[in-house]
Every structure is written in C-alpha cells, then in structure tokens.
C-alpha cells in the first residue's frame, strides 16, 4: 500500500474510471449502431423520422453523460509522480511478478544502451566533421539533411565573385590555363588546359562543380557547330579513365560551406596529371599496366598509381 501512496494514484478512483471508460465506449457504440440501422418501419415518413431523431438524441445524451462522469473521475485519479527517471514506464517496476515479465530491467538496459549510442555517435560525428572535404562521408552523416539548406544560398553567388575565384585559382598554377565560358546563361563552363597533356571541361553551377570530362591535348573540344562539346568522351582509353577518376574526385572534395576551397582542391589534384605519361606507378614501378599509364592520383599525396595498383 505504501508503494501506491508513493506513486500517488488513487486506486479506487482508477477502477471507477476504467468502468466509466467502458460505459463511454458502449454508449458511443450505441450511437453508431442506431445510425447504421437507420430509420425503422413506421406508417408515415414523418413518424419514422421522429422516432429516429429522438433515439439519436437519447444516445448522444448518454455519451455526454458518460464523458462527464469520466472527466470527473479523472481528476480524482491524480497524477503519477514525475520524479521517476523513466516517467510512467517506472510504474513497470511495481509489477510483482518480475520473473515472468522482466520488462522493467530490459527497459533500463535499452535506455543505458541508447544513451551510450548517442554519446558515441556524438564523438564520431565530431571526428567525421574534421574530414568534411569528403562529400560522400557527409551524405551519410547528419549533414545530409542540412545540405539542401546550405546549397540554395551559395547557388546564387554573384557572377563577378565566381569569376574572381576562378581567375585567382588560374593564377596559382602557371602550367595550367583556365578559360571561363558562359554558353548557357549564368552557369560557368571552364576549359582547363594542362600543359600539353590534357584538356578538361568543367561544368559549374555557381561555384559547385557539376561534372567534368577530360580529353587529350590534341583532341577536339568544340563540336561541329563551334560550341564547347561538354558531352563526348575522349577517344583514348587513358583519358576515359582519367575522366572516371576526376568524377570520383568531385565526390571526394566536398565542403558545402566553402565551395571555393573545393574548386581549388580539385584543380590542385587535376594538376598532378601534368606528368600523366612521365610518372611510373608508385606501387609496381612500371609505366604501363594493361596498356594504360598510371591514371589514378591519390587524393592526399597526389602520387601516381595504376587503377589496378591503387589499393
């Protein structure tokens, strides 16, 4: 009985309230039953309607009465103590048959486990944020939800700002020339010429790189109608591979809050292809593997590897 006092529940009122709920439920059922049965057969249409309406009103009144009774009782039941750490679920500890229904201890364990999970997730999240240049890592974390909110604001950067960022990057690398075109409205298309090795077409959206295609130095970059050809892939397998890797790099270098850093990182990485045909593989030491030069460049060290040697 002492336990009951602690919890602060008036048990008598509680059982009365349960009865009241049952009464309310059956009176509500009656309302819908009579509605479902409809009007009963009487001589005149007027008589039928009259009987139906009286019956409906009686039923509604009994619902009202039962509801009032329940409300009155519910004030008597009182509130359970809120000091318990698990709130109402703490009441489960009162169950005298612990052995048969170990709900409470299981609940406590689950609670501890979820607390720990939250703590570790917090640690992991702060660690991952330090490497936020990786777009793919971001997408898996919580910031995947945040990204669409960030993007619209940076998508409307002034044209002049984009031009400035690009020309500043262009000046950083003397062996790399970057020409900026705007063939379709405000979005920029960059033509990057790297030494006498390759030409890359980089399609931008504001300061975000949308896609890129890499071709040989001596390949066509204009289509027959004289426009920049941003679709056709290179005729050479080496540059098709480099295009694939450049697309991977776009997914790797990602920092939504600082798109200019991303463009700069990508260009620094792309620049390491200046020795595409001159660097042997850092792993096998050869120039060729299945007829291809080392087309992969490590994202961090920029070292050259064959696609098959990079793991």
């Amino acid at each position, binding site marked *: 009985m002492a336990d009951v006092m602690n919890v602060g529940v008036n048990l008598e009122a509680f059982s009365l309230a349960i009865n009241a709920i049952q009464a309310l439920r059956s009176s509500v059922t009656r309302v819908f039953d009579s509605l479902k049965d409809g009007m009963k057969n009487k001589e005149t249409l007027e008589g039928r309607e009259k009987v139906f309406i009286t019956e409906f009103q009686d039923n509604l009144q009994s619902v009202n009465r039962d509801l009032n009774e329940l409300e009155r009782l519910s004030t008597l039941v009182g509130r359970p103590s809120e000091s318990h750490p698990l709130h109402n679920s703490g009441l489960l500890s009162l169950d005298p048959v612990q052995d048969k229904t170990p709900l409470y201890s299981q609940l406590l364990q689950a609670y501890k486990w979820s607390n720990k999970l939250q703590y570790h997730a917090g640690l992991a999240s702060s660690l991952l944020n330090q490497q936020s240049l990786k777009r793919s890592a971001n997408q898996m974390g919580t910031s995947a939800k945040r990204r669409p909110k960030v993007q619209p604001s940076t998508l409307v950067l002034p044209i002049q700002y984009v031009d400035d960022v690009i020309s500043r990057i262009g000046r950083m690398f003397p062996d790399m020339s970057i020409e900026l075109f705007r063939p379709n409205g405000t979005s920029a298309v960059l033509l990057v010429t790297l030494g*006498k*090795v390759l030409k890359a077409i980089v399609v931008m959206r504001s300061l975000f790189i949308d896609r890129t295609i890499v071709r*040989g*130095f*001596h390949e066509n970059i204009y289509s027959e109608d004289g426009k920049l050809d941003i679709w056709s892939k290179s*005729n*050479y*397998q*080496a*540059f098709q591979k480099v295009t694939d890797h450049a697309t991977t790099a776009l997914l790797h270098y990602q920092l939504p809050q600082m798109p200019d850093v991303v463009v700069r990182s990508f260009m620094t990485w792309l620049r390491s292809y200046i*020795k*595409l*045909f*001159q660097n*042997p593989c850092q792993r096998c030491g*050869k*120039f*060729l593997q*299945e*007829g*291809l*030069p080392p087309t992969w460049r490590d994202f961090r060290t920029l070292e050259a590897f064959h696609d098959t040697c990079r793991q």
Partner: protein
Amino acid sequence: MGVTCVCQVPVSEGKSVQQTVDILHKKLEQLGAVKQGNFWVDCETYHATGNATGQPSKLLYVMHNSETPLSCMALFEGGPGLSADANFDVLMVKLKSHFQNAKGHKVESRGVRYRYCDFLVKIGTVAMSSSARGISVEVEYCACVIPGDCWNLMKEFMQSFLGSNTPELPTVFTSKAEGLSVPVDCMDTMSQYLELFGRVRKQQVLPGSGVR
C-alpha cells in the same frame, strides 16, 4: 595522331621475312592486341634534272600513307618537306622535265595494323620491286603528342614484344631545335619511314638469307 616510332626489325636467324612477321603478330596477339585492318606506306624517288652546275642532283621523295589517304607527302633529301593533296602525283607527272622518276627505286611497306589500348602497331614487310627486303615496325601512342613525355612509356611497351630490338628515341625528335616538348606531326612519321627505306635500299642482301 600521336607520337610514333618507326624501326627496322632484323629477320630472325634461320627464318624467312614472313616467318619473322608471323612471330611478331603472335607476340602482339598474346599481349591482347587486336587486328584492325591493313596499312601501307610507299615512297617514290625523283631526280632533279637540268642541273647546270653539274653537281650531284638533290633527290625528292614522294610518299603516301594509308593513314592519310587524301594526302601526299613530299620530302627533299635532308631538306624541307610538305604535305599536299593526293593530286600532287599528277603535278609530278607534269613536272617530269624537272623531276625524273627513278624507276625501280619505289619502296613500300605493307602489313597488318594492330590496336592495343591507345597504341597502334603496324608490322610491315618492306619491299623493293616486289621483293621482300626487311621488316618495319611502327608504334604510335595515340594519346600523347609530346615525344619527351611518353618516350619511356612507349619504350616499355615496345620492349614487351620487340625485346632487345627495341630502338632508341628516333633522331627526328632528338634533332629538333625546339627540343622534345613540341607536338609531333605526320611529317615526323614519314621522315622515319624515309630513313628506314634508305637503309633498306642500300642493303643488297637480306640478312639471314646467307647467299645471294
């Protein structure tokens, strides 16, 4: 077009030209190279006539390459070269009072064209007045136009099927005043063939055939 390297491969000891060519074909196919049609390169020699001073006349070579069937290349011995329409042949006929065709001096190389990744390999039988005189191997790395950039890479590839017959960097590139970092053009390939044809012309007896 990419960087090319044309070299002569000696006929293997105790083998005929055709047998040596077959061995090269087999080696390439084992590498994974795929046959992709045929090729030919030919060269006619012209003497400049009406030389008043009596000095030995300069030779003019007119060449054709199946890679560029609409063009005709003309090279002076040790001098400048030009690339023209195929009509140039007709012009040479009209100029016969100045340039005389040295009949019997026509050299050509014909053979199979192989593709391996971005490489083109052409194994040809060099023939003079329809008698086989030697074997030419042309390797082109189509993805790169700078000889200084991709030479080591090409050398590694050639070693994989030519072994000890792998040539050194062609002199046509090393002798360029601008160095090894200027893009190649089709005349570089033709002057390499011209050099090879010149060597073949001088060699009277087929190496390895023993007796005349």
